[in-house]
């Protein structure tokens, strides 16, 4: 029997605002605990929240870019639960009136385009951090340290519909979302810093079943690699349970990075009652047409639009996807260079292969200022026109990275230009044949491998600037 996995993703994106969601405390990046605090983000008696306008602009921009309907008259709700790193023991979040609903994101899976439907995008505040000593979990810790620097940092939660079919698709979705928040400039989007954190809801059903299987939530996946592995593991685990007629329990499971397995965290999750109610400390979140229009004007080019632009030059979907997720200067360099060379494949390969490879080797992250698309296109054109060998192209590139050189001039002055004039080469070929009569005789007698020797002689007497294949063709013709 065929098993169909269904995955829904819940992603938290930490916004890059200067201050926290409901107070003026700075959002800080530090190991020093509890240095950016005030009565509000510490939940002191009598303190009140005031919404951060910048954060609301950011989430609105994201919701618009993800094709959501915008809730014009939304509100904040209190989500009630007790946890030591949640200062008020309720989280200010959104419930039935989130900023964005019913959106979608286009992703690329191999060479095809898929649409990931988004259920909702809402605004909330982050919690503090707990450091459990003696064990990683609160119930078995010997002591717990609390750091409230993160408390109140603005978070956007993006929830997809349960429509993702594979771990690869989930990874591609996260990559797309990550690129989107980076391009919009609303988050640093760094997974390793926790700017982007995701949980996966996974169920498995038999092909043809009308209903989804029992949902299991997986937490603690800290990289795309662990996301892929955890989903694959969980699909296998659930499939095996179904195959052996065992029950799948609705629960939250923890991905163990070292053992590469999921294990049960808590199973009462399904019955949690957060007692949501609208936060009486905050007025309704009214997003006017004017506000939304102004945000729309500020939306930069989106990853999907970048992809379209690149694929219009003739690249494949996966190549276009790759460029849309590369840094801006690579994407721009490709487009500008391709415009001059008019050769998308060579330009793409030369930039993503040779150029990025060389930069990595010398540990450079960006290009020197003299490195323009014009100069790069000169190198590519020289190669394409057979004026220089690919090896010479690489050599010019190495120099262009180091020094303010002009590729054409460099090729000339360093004698890298190949002789492509047939008459000119023909003369040299004749000369070489005349002065190597014995060798010519031996070739004619059947010693083919001596052809290489003659080609070498031709190149040598030309000073190394002859295209070897042309030389060989002419030589064979003469013989």
């Amino acid at each position, binding site marked *: 029997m065929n098993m169909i996995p269904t995955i829904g993703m819940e992603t938290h994106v930490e916004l890059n605002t200067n201050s926290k969601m409901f107070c003026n405390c700075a959002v800080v990046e530090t190991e020093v605990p509890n240095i950016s605090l005030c*009565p509000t983000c*510490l*939940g*002191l*008696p*009598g*303190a*009140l*929240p*005031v*919404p951060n306008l910048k954060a609301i602009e950011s989430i609105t921009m994201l919701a618009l870019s993800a094709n959501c309907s915008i809730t014009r008259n939304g509100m904040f709700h*209190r989500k*009630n639960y*007790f946890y*030591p790193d949640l*200062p*008020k*023991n*309720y989280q200010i979040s959104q419930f039935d009136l989130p900023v964005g609903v019913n959106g979608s994101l286009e992703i690329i899976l191999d060479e095809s385009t898929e649409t990931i439907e988004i259920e909702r995008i809402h605004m909330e505040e982050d919690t503090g951090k707990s450091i459990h000593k003696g064990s990683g979990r*609160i*119930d078995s*810790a010997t002591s*717990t340290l*609390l750091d409230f620097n993160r408390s109140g940092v603005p978070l956007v939660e993006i929830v997809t519909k349960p429509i993702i079919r594979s771990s690869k698709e989930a990874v591609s979705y996260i990559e797309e979302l990550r690129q989107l928040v980076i391009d919009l400039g609303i988050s640093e989007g760094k997974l390793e810093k926790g700017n982007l954190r995701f949980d996966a809801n996974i169920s498995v059903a038999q092909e043809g079943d009308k209903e989804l299987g029992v949902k299991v939530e997986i937490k603690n996946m800290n990289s795309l690699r662990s996301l892929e592995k955890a989903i694959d593991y969980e699909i296998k685990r659930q499939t095996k349970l179904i195959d052996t007629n065992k029950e799948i329990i609705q629960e939250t499971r923890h991905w163990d990075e070292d053992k590469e397995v999921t294990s049960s965290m808590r199973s009462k999750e399904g019955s949690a*009652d957060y*007692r*949501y*109610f609208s936060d*009486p*400390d*905050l*007025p309704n979140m009214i997003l006017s047409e004017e506000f939304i229009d102004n945000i729309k004007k500020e939306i930069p080019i989106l990853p999907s639009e970048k992809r379209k632009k690149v694929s219009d030059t003739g690249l494949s979907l996966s190549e276009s996807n790759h460029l849309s997720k590369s840094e801006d200067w690579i994407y721009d360099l490709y487009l500008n260079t391709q415009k001059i060379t008019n050769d998308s494949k060579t330009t793409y390969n030369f930039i993503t292969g040779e150029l990025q490879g060389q930069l990595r080797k010398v540990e450079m992250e960006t290009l020197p200022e003299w490195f323009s698309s014009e100069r790069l296109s000169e190198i590519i054109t020289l190669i394409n026109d057979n004026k220089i060998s690919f090896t010479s192209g690489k050599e010019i590139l190495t120099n262009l990275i180091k020094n303010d050189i002009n590729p054409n001039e460099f090729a000339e002055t360093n004698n890298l230009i190949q002789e492509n004039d047939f008459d000119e080469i023909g003369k040299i070929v004749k000369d070489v044949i005349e002065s190597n009569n014995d060798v010519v005789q031996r070739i004619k007698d059947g010693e083919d491998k001596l052809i290489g020797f003659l080609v070498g002689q031709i190149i040598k007497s030309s000073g190394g600037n002859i295209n070897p294949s042309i030389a060989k063709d002419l030589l064979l013709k003469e013989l």
Partner: protein
Amino acid sequence: MNLSNSSISEINKLYKNKELKPSEVYEEVFTNASLSESIIHAHLKLFQEEGIEASKLADERFVKGKQLSDLDGIPIAIKDNINLKNHETTCSSKILSNYVSPYDATVITKLRNSGVVFTGKTNLDEFAMGSSTENSAFGPTKNPWNPDHVPGGSSGGSAAVVSVGSALASLGSDTGGSIRQPASFCGVVGFKPTYGTVSRYGLVAFASSLDQIGPITNSVEDAKIIFNSIKGHDPLDATSIQDTSIEIPEDKTAKVGVIKELMEDGISDESKNEVEKTIKLLEEQGNKVVEVSLPLTKMALSIYYLIAPAECSANLSRFDGVRYGSRESGETSYEMIENTRAEGFGEEVKKRILLGTYALSAGYYDAYYGQALKARSLITKDFDNIFQEVDYLISPTTPTPAFKFGEKTENPLEMYMSDLCTIPANLAGLPAISIPTGLSNQNMPLSIQLMSPARTDSSLLNFSEKLEKLVAFNQRTPLLKDMK
């Protein structure tokens, strides 16, 4: 001189004429406090040294002719659910008995900048939940008119200190009548402004959508002066409103409505009598007085006891012993939180947290909290309609004069009934004032309440000031004479 019969403006005039010094006034109120505290227990803390120091600084300002405001050098007491930097804010709860606030509430900042001398923190029902101050973890406050009677609540301490002259005025907070009811019980003026006119930043929240800070004073004029000093939009409180006050008639052309439902069963004859007496005075002056009906006021109590507990159940979640306040030990952090809350909260607070948690629970939300929200908006609409016809509404402030200790502790519903007349103004966010008008057979004060449309606070105060003169109550607690 007899300070307690002097108004803030009179004292300010004496200060300016250098006939009186703030430190002298402070000394007198402190003497009153020292004499009365053993009888009425209205203060949780007196700021003796700080008060002397602050009043001396005020002395210097008047010597130099550099007074900060009309409130400069005026001694004012603060309800102990309003944060004053570097002082305890206990909310009369064990759970906050050791809590020292690192910041000033916005109202405190404003009063500080006005040169006010803070006399101390006053007693209240724990977290402002109650109508008699009997729910204080640190013992009840007694009514200065008769210590066998309650001072009302929850701002019982703040009303009692003004009544007995151990402060010239005080700040209270009013969620369902907590300023007006104790003001009425203690024979002083209590004013609850329009929701949002006074910042709540720094007021420990009970029910955020109902809470409002206001003054308790000897006169309407004093209430006006304090209100003008503490009101105004606050960027730290997202529910505070821009100052867009609305004017309505303030003289004999004003039309007054008597709320029929608050002159029926459940209201004592003595309380009704005060309203009728006042209506006569108004009519003699030329005001038109008509009977109006607000049928939903009968539901106000039920609506209030769903909305207020629901909000408090979340507002009080932060008291968990993790970051501040008292902490009980436990095997796990959850046990610690449970033990802390079990030990730290009193019975009434626990009762309301339970009630509110229940009302918000999945499966019950729609039937209780959701329904209460709908009914609340209907009450607001009812008031809007009534105010198309009349400018002010008059009613008793309380159904009875101050009751005796223990009289209502056994029957919570009866206790809740004492806020019957005051709760509607909180549900609709309206300004309301309690003005003392007479004494009961047992010589306990009685008052009337005036309400007006949202944002008409200034008109309400001006109209009340005139009415106060007509009523000419002018009586003080006998305790003052006994003390001298």
